[in-house]
Structures are given as C-alpha cells and as structure tokens.
C-alpha cells in the first residue's frame, strides 16, 4: 500500500479529505472479483467528522454476498493508521441497489471485459 500521502498528512498535521480517503480505499479488494471496492462502485459515501470518525457507507453486489464482514474489517484496517482518523464506522446499505452499469468505473468494466 502506498502510504506517501499519509506521511504527508502526518508532516503537515492536516486532515485528509474524502478524495484522499477514497483513494486509500482502492487498496480494499473484493477477493472474488479481484477489483477494488471504489472502482466496483461499492463505496457510496465517505465522511470524516470533526472528532475524527470516518463514516463509510458501502454496499455489496447482492445482499446474499457473505463478504460484508471481510470488507468491513479491510476498510477498518486500511483507515485506522490515517492521521486524524480516530475510528472507522462502516455501514452496509442496500439503498440504492448496486447497479454495475451505472456504478462500476470504466477501468473496472474494462478489466471484466465489459462491452458496454
């Protein structure tokens, strides 16, 4: 994992924005698909409160997917070392339902051979 951006945050004592945190979560890979949750479109929302709580909203490809616990822990592991993040709160939601057509990145579609 590239911690360069985190080191920078440490040096300047700043707070990472949502985009920086989102980039870090590209390290969280869905093991069955081999693609990160950001490009799969599973990451719905990410916010960092004033007291350092990172509130993450993700979904799964289906409510029948058993990887919720794995991804929750992987997100927690990824963000726990980020300066100014005191805790991580991951919520899995089904609203709206995941739609690969609209939510997967072009890169992810290309990786999976999508011809859309």
């Amino acid at each position, binding site marked *: 994992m590239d911690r360069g951006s985190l080191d920078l945050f440490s040096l300047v004592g700043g707070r990472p924005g949502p985009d920086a945190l989102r980039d870090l979560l590209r390290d969280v890979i869905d093991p069955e698909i081999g693609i990160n949750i950001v490009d799969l479109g599973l990451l719905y929302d990410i916010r960092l409160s004033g007291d350092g709580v990172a509130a993450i909203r993700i979904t799964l490809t289906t409510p029948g997917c058993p990887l919720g616990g794995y991804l929750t822990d992987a997100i927690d592991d990824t963000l726990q070392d980020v300066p100014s993040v005191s805790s991580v709160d991951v919520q899995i939601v089904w609203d709206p339902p995941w739609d690969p057509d609209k939510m997967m990145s072009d890169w992810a579609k290309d990786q*999976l051979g999508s*011809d859309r």
Partner: protein
Amino acid sequence: MTGLRVGLTAPARHRRPAWVPQRIATAVVMLFGGLREGLFHLGLPVPPGNGTLSQDHGELMVLGFLGTLIALSARVALGETWGYLAPAAADAGGLAIVAGAPGEVGQALIGCGGLALVAIFAAVHRIQPSLHNVVLAAAALCRFVSDGLWIAGWDISKFVPWLVGFLVLTIAGERLELSRMTGDGCSSPPPGCLPPACSPPLKAGPSPATPGEAVPPGIRITGAGLIALSLWPARYDIACRTIRGHGVTRYMTAALLTGYAWLAVAAACGPTWGRWPTWRARGPAAAPATPNCTRSSSAS
C-alpha cells in the same frame, strides 16, 4: 444515487462471527466421516463406520457437509442471528449421523436446516428481489426435497437429481449474480440453458435405464442442460476474466472452472450410460469403483 427503492441497512458485520469456526469444524468431521466410508466402499482397507453412515454417506456429503457450508455462507451474508438455525441444524444432523444416532434424528435435523436455508434466501429476496436469488432459493428447495425423500427412504439413485439440483443451482445462482458485470446486457444464461439444468427434480423418480434400454428422454434433456450450463461461463461468467488475476482471486477462479469441467463430465455420464453414477456398493471384498453408494448397500 437517486431512484431509491429500498431503505434497508444490513446488520453490523464481523469478519469472524461467533459460531462460524465451530460450524466449519463440524463440517470437517462430516467430510472425513463421509470420505472414510467412501474409501471403504471403494475397497480400501479402512475401518467401516457405523451402519447409518455406511448407508447414507453420499447424502451426508451433499446435504450435511456441503449443506452446512452453503448454509453458513448464506447466514453470514444475511447477518441475522436466526439464520444460524440453517447451518447449526445441518451440522448437528450430520454429527448425529456420523455418531450413529438412532432413528432418523440426523436426517430430520438436516431437513430443518434445509427449511431454514429456504427462509434465508426468502429474506434475502425481500431485501433485493432478483433472478439470481430466485435461483438460489430454488436450490435450497431442492435440498429440502432431497431431505424429505431421504427421510422417506427413497433410494439415492431415485433422488440424486434433487441433490444435483441443490448444488448446481447454488453455483448457478451465485455466478448469475456476478455475470451482471460482464456487460452483455444478459443477466441470465442462454435461453434454454437453466431450464433443462433445473429439470432433474422434475424427473426424479423414474428408474434409470438398464443396459440395452433406450436412455430416458429426461436424462438426455438433463444431461444436455447441464453440459450447456458448464459451457455458459465461456461467454457470461467473469471467471474467464478473473482467471488472469492474482492470489486468492485466481485460486478461487481456477477451482470454479475446474468445477465447471467436472460438471460437464458428470453431465455426459447420464446421456452416455442412461443413468447417473450411483452404483451400488458391495463392500470392500467385491466392490468395484463406486463413487457413491445406495441405501441398500449396507444390506449386501
């Protein structure tokens, strides 16, 4: 993110939920118990198990061992405490069979687990209705029917199509869900592929063909459907893409594709020989290669 249709939040998830290690450990006990009995019927010098296990090790492997793991996966996905009834009942029933519990206690417990698995998929379908969840629920129904026929004393050669339906439809449902990522605008197998694959349960019951007899049409259709299903990944399954990945992703994909190959081999057995391979075992002294045994095997 507009167009909201459901407003549900999943229960909190944990990577290692309570009870999971115990359920897996019990499933492993079933695996070794069933394997030992299988080796015994193959004629290898291993000590035989108890009488019940000797009769039912084929059912134990599918409904007990694999049934427990599939139910465990479904329960972890749903995240509801009551869902543990499915794997807990299945592995308790499996343990009862391995331990030689009297009567039909083991079969009845496994049957309860099958019913609970249907309830889990019904709950998942209520969260997000989808075709793949319907297929998974159909698989669970196949399992429940298998349990019932097992308890009713049917010979496994008569209800092995229901067992096949349980396993094949479970995998088909899961791969159907992932096939949405291929962007083919087709979230289901080619027309006519799944229906024949689903047809085994509809034809369960008729005796398999004996040598010299014509192969029953149901076996031909089912075999063709299963072969078509085994070829379906080449076009629709993301496995053909993820096999180029690394690590655990590639490992899981390789295992899956190997399973598709074995499905094709098994599917070809029916139309070729006129029946599915559930030969009767005669014990170590006289047993030919017997990949499975029947309820009557212990009497011989």
